[in-house]
């Protein structure tokens, strides 16, 4: 989706599990050292559309958790560093994850004792494995052991995630509903004022009402702009050395809508 300069891509009320595998666009220069993978951070933010690769929460969803004062998103090593030391700074092994997914998995292995394997969204279509039920991301098929193990390892049912997802849905739906119901309200009030010509009290009421609608529509729009898919602090450069691929992944951009800033 192309967004013009004055337009902002706004997140959907509910981010549906990706309908395709995520195809990595970034090819950062390999980093070395104990914490070299941190240098991929900008690439990872763009690569996964500023969303957790596993639970799909966006950075803006977790903004309320800033009061805790700890980092909200991390680089997750899909292949554990302890099992595969070479995976530490391998870009394809790094995924952008929220602090909750990152913590819950901890050192859970890629394959559990029942032979179930963890899934990741560059090799598995997320919507085939997971779906949303009452704002909770769950394994779609209880018989799909890999999806069940992934949901367990990343604790996709963590209520902190479900409640943030619900909060976004409700915030956006209420504002969109108001904007949609009041589209044309000011025109209607102008028509009313014309019809009431001579009745100063009615005209004054209509003018005040029209101003009130204008103000509340603006507040609702400002709130929606908080859900911008590309945050204001988006990285303008990354380790790839160019920014031609600084765009949202297709699986997210096709779910966004446009709003004029």
């Amino acid at each position, binding site marked *: 989706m192309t967004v013009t300069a004055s337009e902002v891509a706004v997140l959907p009320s509910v981010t549906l599990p990706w309908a395709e595998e995520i195809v990595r666009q970034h090819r950062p220069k390999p980093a070395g050292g104990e914490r070299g993978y941190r240098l991929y951070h900008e690439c990872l933010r763009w690569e996964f559309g500023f969303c957790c690769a596993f639970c799909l929460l966006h950075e803006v969803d977790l903004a309320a958790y*800033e*009061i*805790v004062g700890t980092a909200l*998103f991390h680089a997750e090593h899909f292949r554990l560093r302890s099992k595969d030391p070479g995976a530490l700074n391998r870009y394809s092994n790094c995924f952008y994850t929220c602090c909750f997914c990152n913590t819950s998995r901890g050192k859970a292995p890629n394959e559990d004792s029942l032979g179930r394997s963890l899934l990741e969204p560059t090799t598995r279509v997320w919507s085939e494995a997971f779906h949303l039920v009452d704002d909770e991301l769950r394994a779609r098929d209880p018989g799909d052991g890999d999806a069940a193990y992934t949901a367990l390892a990343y604790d996709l049912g963590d209520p902190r995630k479900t409640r943030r997802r619900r*909060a976004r849905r409700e915030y956006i739906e209420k504002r969109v509903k108001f904007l949609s119901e*009041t589209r044309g*309200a000011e025109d209607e009030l102008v028509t009313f004022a014309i019809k009431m010509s001579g009745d100063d009290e009615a005209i004054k009421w209509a003018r005040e009402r029209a101003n009130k609608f204008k103000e509340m529509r603006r507040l609702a729009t400002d*709130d929606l702009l908080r859900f911008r898919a590309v945050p204001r602090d988006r990285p303008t450069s990354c380790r790839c050395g160019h920014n031609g691929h600084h765009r949202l992944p297709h699986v997210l951009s096709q779910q966004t809508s446009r709003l004029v800033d």
Partner: protein
Amino acid sequence: MALGVAEVEVSRRLLIVEDEERSREALASMLKRRGYEVQTASNGATSVRRAGRGSASVVLMDLVLGNGMDGIEAARLIQRHNPLTAFIVITAHRHEESYHARAKQHKLRIEAWVDKPLDDVDQLLPIIEKALRKVELLAHLERVRVKEEPLDSLSYLRALADFDPSIRGLANEVRDELVGSEAGAGEQEAIMQIRSEIDGLYDEFWRLVGPDSDPAHLARLRERLRELQNQEADIVEQHAEARFSFDPSQGRQLIEETRRRLGGK
């Protein structure tokens, strides 16, 4: 060393927005003599244009301006395009509630409300300096967020305050502004305790899970985990609402009242 905060380049340019020419020029001249680079604007629209060119770090704003746009509206538009800008309101209407309410509603970064007429321009200097220092710190944080993630702004502020105690008060103020909430240290501490217990439960869960594990014990762990996660969400969500301006119940009321008057349309 102050972690390079002092080295961050933020303009020391001020913008004075005042419709009364004599006051405007007098204040500009006095501030220029004290070493600031000063721009002026006589109305809201001009101030938004001047600030839009991205220069002034601090705006000294009168509230009652000509040409239909008052100081709060002008500040809102300026802040929308330059979120780091700080405002010092200089007004004869300092005690009018409606201005404060709108400033709060738009989350304007107002450093101080100063009475007009100004008795002594020097009373402004510490306020201007503090506002400039805050803008510097915020600008620095923005750069850190972009360059050095995953250290987020708040943990960076905490590290900054620990490293350089002389700016601890300022760092805490900026943190409160960034968070935009009344969350106190007690709540943060409560969350950190909850997180610590959650981490312990995850560790225990992954240590025990396997073919020989006791399902009842694992279920109890999960139950306690859910309880703690909900507790944390309860604390955080008390502050989440404060980030939004639109009140859906007021919107609903407005629609219904208007419909009644317009005859059920």
